[in-house]
């Protein structure tokens, strides 16, 4: 049983159907107590200071003996830094499997990509479909955690983030993860309502800050919509697995994401949106598109390295929440 790293969400059903263990490298990196040391280690090896902290973290997780046998690297639909990341992995002698989400959401191209991955890992479409049905049961439970967040107000922004983001790799063990989800649902079903008066959406890649959600709650605001994390949990139930990864918004253009965000702003009754951008990331350019196309107040915050929210960002958050009141 190999441990297969992934640089972002890929059709995880294929890895599981092949009897391998999926490992979302982002989750391993950011949950490491020494996450900032991992970034520094990549810089010590020659990674530039002004390159995304996630890429550096991913590099160190794999190279510094993260117990990863192969890496599925998303060459289209995530970030072009991944290309050089793959090359430095190859330099370190790590096996790479490229995977591309077609820019225009072309069904046939996506199916072909999945087909190649199925061949390479030695499984079949039937087995993949079987795993998909198994995962859909768990995803449905995670969707309930999301519903409890915005509709019943019994789940914190952090837990909403955590359970949805974990659906990229199901923590490498589907049954164990499902039990954790079941336990959490029992708690959340009986929990008292949160009473923050400001309801926020969080859009953009997951934060490199470790305490953003708790800080927001400390100033009376709660995240009731995590855009990309929710996408990782495959929120659009559909039987065709290729279609599922076509409906998934994250790897495609920003306008598809905007449609999804708009609908959720309406449905979840959001007062404002926080757009998180990573330092040095191309997605900072997309901020202007969000500001043009979304009709709610937007606060853009930027994170570089793992750690607590810095004083400047706190000041901006305080002012934003104050402005929404």
């Amino acid at each position: 049983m190999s441990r297969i790293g992934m640089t972002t969400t890929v059709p995880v059903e294929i890895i599981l159907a092949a009897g391998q263990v999926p490992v979302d490298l982002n989750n391993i990196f950011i949950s490491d107590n020494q996450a900032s040391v991992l970034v520094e280690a990549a810089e010590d090896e020659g990674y530039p200071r002004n390159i995304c902290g996630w890429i550096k973290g991913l590099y160190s997780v794999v190279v510094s003996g993260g117990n990863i046998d192969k890496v599925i690297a998303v060459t289209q639909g995530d970030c072009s830094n991944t290309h050089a990341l793959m090359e430095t992995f190859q330099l370190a002698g790590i096996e790479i499997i490229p995977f591309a989400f077609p820019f225009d959401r072309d069904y046939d191209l996506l199916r072909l990509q999945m087909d190649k991955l199925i061949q390479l890992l030695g499984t079949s479409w039937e087995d993949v479909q079987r795993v998909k049905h198994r995962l859909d049961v768990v995803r449905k439970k995670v969707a309930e955690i999301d519903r409890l967040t915005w509709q019943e107000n019994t789940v914190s922004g952090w837990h909403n983030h955590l359970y949805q983001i974990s659906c990229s790799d199901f923590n490498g063990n589907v049954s164990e993860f499902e039990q954790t989800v079941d336990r959490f649902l029992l708690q959340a079903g009986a929990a008292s309502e949160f009473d923050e008066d400001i309801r926020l959406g969080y859009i953009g890649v997951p934060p490199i800050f470790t305490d953003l959600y708790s800080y927001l709650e400390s100033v009376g605001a709660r995240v009731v919509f995590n855009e990309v994390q929710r996408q990782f949990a495959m929120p659009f139930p559909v039987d065709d697995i290729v279609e599922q990864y076509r409906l998934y918004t994250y790897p495609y253009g920003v306008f598809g994401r905007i449609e999804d965000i708009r609908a959720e702003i309406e449905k979840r009754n959001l007062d404002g949106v926080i757009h998180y951008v990573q330092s040095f990331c191309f997605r900072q350019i997309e901020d202007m598109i969000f500001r043009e196309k979304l009709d709610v107040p937007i606060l853009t915050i930027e994170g570089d390295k793992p750690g607590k929210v810095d004083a400047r960002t706190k000041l901006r958050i305080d002012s934003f929440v104050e402005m929404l009141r």
Partner: protein
Amino acid sequence: MRCGIDLGSRSVKLVLMNETGLQDSRLFETVDFYRNYGRRTDNGMVVDFPAIGIEAVDSITATGYGRNTIDIVGAKIIPELKAHVVGAIWQTGLESFTLLDLGGQDSKVIKVQSGRMVGFETNDKCAASTGRYLENMATVLGISLEELSRYSDNPVELNATCAIFGESELIGRIVEGHGIPELAAGVNYTIFKRIKPMLRSLLSETVVFTGGVALGKGICRLLEQELGVKVVVPRHPQLNGAIGCGVYEKGKRR
């Protein structure tokens, strides 16, 4: 007597106010203030008002860069942008304007409509649009900050992408033989170029300009010429945040 304190990154501003207005104000270097008048206790920092020469005050309201790290015992802490909006409204009597505050280490642009903050921008993590940068550049030119801030005509082109590398760029321009007025105007123009994108989506017909940098006329003139707006500098631009604290009343939602 109410006390308003703005704990800035470079200086601490303290005002005393009552119903009739501003009664007294003090300005301290930030480090000196903490060192000489602050005393750490288990509950936070106690300000030694008698040492400053101030009698007992009825209330203390504080804001500023230190508000997340410094607790002043007995003080109400309010968000910095809020303090600046309240201060600018009180000082100018205006209700709708764009506030531009250029302080020691940060720049803020806030759009105010009918007395409410409706949008804001702050500089990114870079000092190339701040008072600190101007101080350094004045030192390179061998003139005072006050003199530097007068000039706006015929700016020498500078592309300062960084507050430190900007210094060597300026030295290169000095070597080329440009005069102090053009060099100083060039420095002021780089500040304008930095804040222009921040102002873009938040502009109003009137810009209220505060912070230490507003004491100079050069950047005011650049703002008026380049943006075609009316620039209002209140009587105490540097004290604006502290005044906002001094007049802020809890529960008074604008």
